[in-house]
């Protein structure tokens, strides 16, 4: 298990380095970027040339890359030119990561809390009304563009009904104390209940929008895998023991059906970042996603580079976590016989 974990971590490093080189080369080969961002309309050819030289953007690409690597190793990924001009990319990441994490966690929680029970019920009543409805529903969930869903939610529940705030993470006026950067958490540990609640209210709509796809997927996997398990021999054995339905359900069906579901949950968590780009833009939610969206629009290369790298990193880590958690629920892997594929 340990060797496997180590191997995977090394793989992660490889992925990140490869990616960084790829992105860096590509980003640098593009027009615009820092110079345009810094000068805007005031730019004249002369000024451009001067600034390009000052920033060393006229040097050969690999020279630039090694300089970048050097800085990167010391945690310096350059300074934002578009998202929050003047802040270091790393700072921006650290600031916004908690926001997106809060959002993603809530989204996944929603998806799981609704998806798994529904998936189980649908499987039990296979072909029933509930089954067909929820299946089609889940497919629609995939078919609706996330940002559109987000928009409709905001329009209805925030603008028309005014139940939730439309944008942001927290009201400016609250001047809540910042401890961890996780607003809800901060609110709780500083006992600023209003702050915590306000932060939660800001999370709800985006989280729902964000959870639409994970929900659909988790629901469908749960359903499928429960169906598979239901006609496994050992369920029949359990029946032949005359066990009560709850026991069979809990101990024999769900425990086995959860294996693929766990994987899926992991995948979806990783993939949330993509959805976050759209959702956070709609709700002006100051997280990684919004930073990416603005970064793309304003060609903020340092920030883009770091954030995409981190996204990939997180994604791989999540997957690793998933594979490990597998071991916990699946003895076959734990005892190493299954190894790590």
């Amino acid at each position: 298990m340990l060797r496997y974990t180590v191997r995977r971590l090394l793989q992660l490093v490889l992925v990140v380095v490869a990616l960084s080189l790829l992105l860096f080369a590509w980003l640098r080969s593009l027009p615009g970027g820092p110079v345009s961002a810094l000068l805007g309309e005031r730019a004249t050819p002369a000024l451009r040339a001067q600034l390009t030289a000052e920033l060393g953007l006229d040097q050969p690409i690999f020279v630039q890359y090694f300089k970048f690597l050097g800085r990167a190793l010391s945690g310096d990924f350059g300074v934002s030119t578009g998202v929050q001009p003047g802040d270091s990319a790393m700072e921006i990441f650290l600031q916004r990561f908690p926001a997106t994490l809060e959002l993603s966690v809530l989204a996944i929680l929603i998806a799981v809390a609704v998806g798994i029970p529904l998936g189980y019920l649908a499987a039990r009543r296979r072909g029933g009304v509930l089954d067909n409805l929820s299946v089609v529903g889940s497919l629609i969930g995939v078919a609706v563009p996330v940002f559109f869903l987000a928009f409709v939610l905001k329009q209805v529940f925030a603008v028309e009904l005014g139940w939730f705030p439309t944008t942001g993470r927290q009201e400016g006026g609250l001047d809540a104390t910042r401890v961890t950067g996780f607003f809800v958490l901060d609110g709780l540990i500083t006992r600023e209940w209003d702050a915590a609640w306000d932060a939660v209210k800001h999370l709800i709509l985006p989280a729902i929008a964000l959870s639409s796809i994970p929900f659909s997927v988790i629901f469908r996997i749960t359903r499928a895998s429960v169906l598979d398990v239901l006609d496994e021999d050992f369920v029949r054995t359990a029946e032949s023991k005359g066990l009560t339905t709850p026991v069979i359900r809990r101990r024999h069906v769900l425990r086995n059906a959860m294996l693929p579901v766990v994987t899926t949950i992991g995948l979806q968590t990783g993939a949330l970042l993509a959805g976050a780009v759209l959702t956070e833009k709609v709700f002006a939610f100051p997280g990684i996603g919004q930073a990416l969206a603005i970064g793309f629009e304003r060609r903020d290369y340092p920030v883009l580079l770091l954030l995409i790298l981190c996204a990939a990193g997180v994604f791989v880590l999540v997957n690793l976590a998933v594979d490990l958690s597998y071991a916990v629920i699946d003895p076959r892997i734990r005892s190493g016989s299954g190894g790590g594929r």
Partner: protein
Amino acid sequence: MTARTDKIDKLAQHTARSDAGVSLAAAAWRRLRRNPVFLLGAAIVVAFVVLALLAPLLAPHDPAEPMLGDQVVRARNEIPPSQPGHPLGGDQVGRDLLSRLLVGAQQTLLVGVLATLIGLAGGLVLGTLAGALSGWVDTVVMRVVDVMLSIPGLLLAVSIGSLFAQPNQYTVILAVAIVQIPVFARLLRGSMLAQRHSDHVLAARALGVRERAIVFRHMLPNSLGPVIVQATLVLAIAIIEAAGLSFLGLGNPDDRLPEWGQMLGQAQNVIDSHPELAFWPAGCIVVVALGFTLVGESLREALDPKSRR
């Protein structure tokens, strides 16, 4: 390998196993014919494709011609309402909305199909390479694929999309397509590996059939099942992700030939005063994406031996 990649592999072997010979396809078809979900999906897809192909004939006006331009007053947020000859009215620069939706169908189909085909082609090449001549080729190809798979789909698409010096229709398609290449590649490799050890391949090899023949006559054909399923699903994904790109302003800036995602993306800043401009394309996207997904899902289920309960 990540859990994600593993999942793709499972799916691959899974369906590859089931996909042995015509009789099975026939059985699958029999199940499909009775499956209302599939029928609904198929109906949508067929309608969409027909509409898309006939669009130029059906469209009452030139989708690029701002014929109602004089009715547009952005200052007072006036956009041409429904009127004789223009059942859906005009868009934010006074072009006939109906015509744009119709022609949009064509462009959307184009985006979906091209993106899928490119992704498929790329995937086929890589996957076949890896699956056929395993060994270091396999390793290298799969490492590359893993790197690509280690970024969430849309995020990758958006990154790529934003990295073109001058975005246009094809950069969008390319961005969406590239994301799908690794998925197809893994899928194909997975099911080819499953084939590699299957009896008919072993038999063929025992009979001394040449490796190339084995790959192309035995392994490849039998591995296509899951790939085809995936392709239908990718069509839907492609359309949706293209919309996502447009929403982020990375779509095709030239809007003379409209595409639904683009229309939706452009309607976003008038969405609450003129929701119809957004709801029409959005509705179309949802329905069509749903259509392809329904078909894909029911195909997958039909090809899955376990589903024969």
